[in-house]
């Protein structure tokens, strides 16, 4: 069925720019063929103008990575179109599972002792201490109801707005995404003071030169609201 009256691909102008809406009922092959034709036909529309950003909306069609690449390639060939995003309402069970995991808080009641590594997707809530030599890793935030005396790694998949929160903050090392904090070595500083007195959290500050800073826990809500706008 090659004659489809050109209904599979619609180009729409919106506030955000151009959106290419793809039919989600036909076969992918038919869709791609029509997209190619349409782009050829509309070549003039794109040719001389400035570069346009387009958003592709695949509706309720599941797009594999390679399908997504094929679509992007067809559009990018025109030279003046740049694909900003390929959107689909559908994801695999696996992807959905990942989204759920990332949004969960796993709570653990134990002391994370020397040599132990506790690693979770999402946020971790530890009721207990993290002792020197113990490591906690989360793709999201880390909350310790107790003393953090070991190593905490938050945002391990790149989330730089993640935080590490502890009732007693005496970490040996903290990392948030790729920003690090190291406690001073004993020979550098005799007194092993907490990074902050009382309950606190660690977060990433700075634009060009990123660093980890500490703040009192009562300010955490303020911080989380401020980063949710960016």
């Amino acid at each position, binding site marked *: 069925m090659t004659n489809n009256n050109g209904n599979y691909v619609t180009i729409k102008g919106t506030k955000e720019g151009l959106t290419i809406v793809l039919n989600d009922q036909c076969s992918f092959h038919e869709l791609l063929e029509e997209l190619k034709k349409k782009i050829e036909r509309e070549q003039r529309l794109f040719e001389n103008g400035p570069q346009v950003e387009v958003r592709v909306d695949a509706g309720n069609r599941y797009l594999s990575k390679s399908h997504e690449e094929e679509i992007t390639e067809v559009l990018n060939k025109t030279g003046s179109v740049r694909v900003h995003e390929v959107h689909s309402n559908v994801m695999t069970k696996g992807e959905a599972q990942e989204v759920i995991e990332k949004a969960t808080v796993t709570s653990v009641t134990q*002391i994370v*002792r*020397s*040599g*132990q590594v506790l690693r979770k997707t999402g946020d971790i809530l530890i009721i207990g*201490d993290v*002792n*020197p*030599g*113990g490591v906690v890793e989360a793709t999201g935030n880390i909350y310790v109801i107790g003393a953090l*005396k070991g190593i905490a790694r938050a945002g391990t998949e790149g989330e730089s707005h993640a935080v590490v929160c502890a009732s007693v903050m005496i970490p040996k090392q903290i990392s948030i995404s790729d920003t690090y904090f190291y406690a001073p070595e*004993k020979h550098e500083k005799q007194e092993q003071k907490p990074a902050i007195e009382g309950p606190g959290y660690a977060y990433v500050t700075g634009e060009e030169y990123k660093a980890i800073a500490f703040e009192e826990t009562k300010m955490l809500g303020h911080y989380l609201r401020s980063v949710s706008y960016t």
Partner: protein
Amino acid sequence: MVGEAIVITSGKGGVGKTTTSANIGTALALQGQKVCLIDTDIGLRNLDVVMGLENRIIYDLVDAAEGRCKVQQALIRDKRFDCLHLLPAAQTKDKSAVNPEQMQEIVETLRPEYDFILIDCPAGIEQGFKNAVSGADKAIVVTTPDTAAVRDADRIIGLLENEDIEPPKLVVNRVRSDLSREGNVLDVEDVVATLAVDLLGMIVDEEHVLKAAHKGEPIAMNPNSRASLGYRNIARRLLGESVPLMAVEEKKSFFSKMKSLFGIKS
């Protein structure tokens, strides 16, 4: 009789596992308990030396494990006590000469004959540790009050949590009075706070301990030593008595020092 099998372990070497095994064993035997000590530090045996029982060894733990002799044949009897026996480690083999199943079998063979079976564990977290722990139903973790030993004790406690064994009890060894403490030495209360396990007792750092080991006469036999008193108190606590932690451990002068060490106002 169904004896308790207790492993004495630490992670780090040289913190006093062997000394603790020998002296808790001696202190229990002084209380009329039937005690068997097992040295699992194959290749580096020295519990026999500390106990002064090195010259009569014919068979050892590996012989018993491999069936070259009966377990009873390998036991050395300590003539100073009604019932204190030692199963010595082999000196010429290594830790892999015994496996956990064999250890369990040996402990089960001995269990009906004794009140306490004390298992002296080698340093480390490998095969030797696994062997020593496999036969035990309780554990005593020994540490000294310094950062490295406490770190290793913490590691060991973490590993013990994965075993089918009661939560371990802590012995802090080589505690010094605050006057002679220096540098990297931690307070006992900091040690207990970090490890978050029950404190079974603390033993002072004392020259007599070394001399006693040299003579093959465990310090617990000496009624005039503060370390000895510490071990005797641990034995009484193991027998279910509630002995206050500090009150009777030391002579008056030391007691007041300990009180200040613990921040107790007199």
